[in-house]
């Protein structure tokens, strides 16, 4: 099979996970997970704790054995089955949440730990790596003398030292404080792009996944809920779980009423309903707060916009760069609706708790899911 691919010159995935399952006694940590990572890609495994993302990473690393399924890694132009290979015979570098830097070895010794060959070559490599992570000249410091962010970068340099074809990151930023974390996100991402190293990162932080990943794998209860680019995951979540886990969301109970239409309260609204449902089928409408549009005035122009109605303003909350407005629309059954409005827009709208405000829900952003079982609509 591999030979055929070679012959046709098809690009081989850096890593391919095929129906991998992991069971601990009666508990199923992973239930037949399949995915592939392209060469040079940055893939994020995102999900709540206990969703199986770390187990999957440990199986890829060879630290756990898969109960079922297979793993393939690219080796040159061919693909090799690494399912039963010990960690030392796979080709990857790993950074753990704790960094696991050897406390009694200095930075240079830590980074050179996996390097073989002449001492001068090792020294050169260490110097080059330290320059790359932006920490030149700290060769002789011990890990305890470094800040958390510095330790994290040294751990990254150690994982990259042997130029592995795959880089695994296990919640590498979660032990750092918010500001350092944000800075390091960019650093790691740009280093990864510069080196072009295929990377799989585990995280429970959606913001981290959205900013760093080329593609995100959203996991829950040992299965994959959705695989897609950050844009796809955010704007077109495949199901209620993904929609709720990534970003803020509004949920409105409605029923289906014809193709591309839903009944919300007494009003008929246009919405994206895929797949189509029989009329009267209960639905949950999803829309991001920032996609909810408010209008400064209620004129015939606004009244022409689809999915528009008058809303009571219930609460106004300042969240830094934007305001979060709680609304209720009598014509839509009076359900609460959140809208995010940037400051400049907020000033223009001239909102207050006494006044009603026209609100519209763009039909292409209003998505309908089945009732809240978590299953895809």
């Amino acid at each position, binding site marked *: 099979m591999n030979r055929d691919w070679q012959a046709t010159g098809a690009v081989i995935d850096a890593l391919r996970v095929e129906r991998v399952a992991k069971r601990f006694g009666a508990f199923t940590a992973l239930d037949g997970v399949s995915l592939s990572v392209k060469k040079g890609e940055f893939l994020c495994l995102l999900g709540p704790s206990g969703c199986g993302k770390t187990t999957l990473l440990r199986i890829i*690393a*060879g*630290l756990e*054995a*898969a*109960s*079922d399924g*297979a793993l393939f890694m690219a080796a040159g132009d061919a693909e090799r*089955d690494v*399912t*039963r*290979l*010990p*960690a*030392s*015979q*796979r080709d*990857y*570098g*790993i950074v*753990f949440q*704790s960094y*696991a830097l*050897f*406390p*009694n*070895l*200095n930075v240079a010794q830590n980074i050179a*730990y*996996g390097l073989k060959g002449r001492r001068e070559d090792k020294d050169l490599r260490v110097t080059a790596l330290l320059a790359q992570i932006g920490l030149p000249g700290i060769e002789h410091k*011990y*890990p*305890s*003398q470094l800040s958390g962010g510095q330790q994290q970068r040294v751990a990254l340099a*150690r*994982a990259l*030292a*042997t130029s*592995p074809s795959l880089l*695994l990151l296990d919640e590498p930023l979660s032990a750092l404080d918010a500001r350092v974390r944000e800075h390091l996100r960019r650093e790691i991402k740009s280093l990864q792009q510069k080196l072009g190293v295929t990377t799989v990162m585990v995280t429970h932080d959606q913001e981290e996944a959205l900013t760093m990943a080329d593609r995100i794998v959203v996991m829950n209860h040992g299965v994959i809920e959705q695989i897609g680019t950050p844009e796809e995951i955010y704007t077109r979540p495949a199901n209620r779980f993904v929609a709720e886990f990534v970003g803020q969301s509004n949920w409105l109970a409605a029923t289906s009423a014809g193709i591309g239409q839903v009944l919300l309260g007494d009003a008929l609204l246009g919405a994206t309903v895929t797949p189509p449902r029989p009329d009267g089928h209960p639905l949950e409408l999803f829309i991001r707060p920032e996609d909810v549009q408010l209008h400064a005035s209620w004129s015939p122009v606004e009244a022409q916009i689809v999915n528009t109605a008058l809303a009571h303003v219930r609460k106004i909350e300042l969240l830094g760069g934007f305001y979060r407005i709680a609304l209720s629309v009598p014509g839509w059954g009076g359900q609460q609706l959140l809208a995010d409005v940037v400051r400049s827009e907020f000033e223009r709208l001239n909102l207050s708790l006494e006044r009603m405000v026209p609100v519209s829900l763009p039909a292409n952003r209003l998505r309908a899911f089945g009732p809240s079982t978590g299953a895809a609509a």
Partner: protein
Amino acid sequence: MIALRAGGRIAADRSQQVAAGLLWLLAAALVLGLALPLAAILGKALTGDDGRFAGLAQFAAIVGEARFWDAVSNSLAVSLTTTMIVLPLAYVFAAALTRTCMPAKPLFRALALTPLLAPSLLPGIALVYLFGNQGLLKAWFPDGSIYGFWGIVIAEVFFTFPHALMILVTALSVADARLYEAATALGAGRIRRFVTVTLPAARYGLISSALVVFTLVIVDFGAPKVIGGQYNVLAVEVYKQVIGQQNFPKGAVIGMLLLLPAVLAFVIDHLLQRRQRALLTARAQPLVVRPQAWVDVLSTVACAAIGGALLVIIATAVAAAFIRLWPYNLSLTLAHFDFDNMDGGGWAAFYNSMKMALATSVIGTLMVFGGAYLAEKTRAAPVARQLLKLLAIIPMAVPGLVLGLGYILFFNNPANPLHFLYGSMTALVLCSVMHFYTTANLTATTALKQLDAEFEAVAASLKVPFWTTLWRVTLPVCLPAMLDIARFYFVSAMCTVSAVIFIYTPDTVLASVAVLNMDDAGDTAAAAAMATLIVAASALICLVFSVASWWLSRRTQAWRIR
């Protein structure tokens, strides 16, 4: 390729195969040196004189004897009384060390721990010199009444005091200042704070030290042998049955019964420790002790009194070793050290002890640390790892006397291919390594658990075999703990009597056994001299270890300084 997938296991690389081999080797050593001898006792206890299976018949026969019940009630009386005396004393001492601004704390601490350097025979000998028939203070215990209940109790208090103290110091040194502040803010007085905050926090420490003291006393046979006179206790009963009457089945049965309190104490302690973990949270604020004149003075006086008493006992034994004829001729002499012209084994006994203690120290440390490392840090041979972990906790619950008895029954069996080991130095070393395995293993495991669990995973990802990481990272980081283990093994092996009393031969007689034998032969001054030598050797080794660990930590622990 698909056929290989069955089983859900990852193939072992070469380093994992090495680890698995070592794990099985160590597990086999523990089975051989611990499990099989214990099984041999059980077998003996269940086998009649005719060599047939006797079931519990021998237990029933012994339980029917009045003599046995005398020994049981005596053992319980001595153990309970000692526990009730040691606990308050050790608590006061521990509280003074941890919760007051008493001066000279390191001195008091060192003083309180000195009994660890001596075999349990030493306080017995010292008591003979103080209160015995020719004692300086015999008026305190008229008509030789020191030979019996109170003699044993005082000797055991001396012997067990440091053990209780160490546990209580640990229990009392962790305190959450926030609880005291909350109690004070709520208007609780000194006594209410003690009852509602201090005691609950120290509860497990108190129970644990009570169990340790009780167990140590009930299985100790050194002190009652020397100072017990006609007062018969279980541990001495085993000795008499085996050495005096060569009645192995009966010795085995009593030995099995002696296991009961030890196992019971061990199980209770284990269950309690599991519950204790939740007590201290990471957010606890350390308690800062402030000087308080009357508390500090009172503590100093109490500690001086307790430390003084311990010192008097050691000093008496040491003095007796150098005094020509106590108490009639107090001139100094080295005549009592002329062991070669006395019964008991001569200087060879001392050299044997040194050899045995050194070997135990080296082999024990390597074995314990290697075992703990492989069990904690590798993923090879899961069955062997579990077996190793299980066997490692058993020695805590096995009295030395019982283990020693198991060694005779197991190794002295002509049918055993390992029969040639019987009475050899190898058997003595193996027995000592096993006897103190649990404590040493606990130290090693604790040290290893402080290391990041992912070191081995990182090393594997970098294609570095585990022994490289062991050599470059794990060993250097754990060096202080290893030195602790080595010192513990040396001192314990130097002082132990009970584990080796059944398995020495004239060629391998040991110093602690010589003390016993010389005392038995009425040569108490020589016994005191030999006991003094043991204390001196133990103290010297502790000193050497302190210097070594100071020097090594300067060389290898530089990374600990921030």
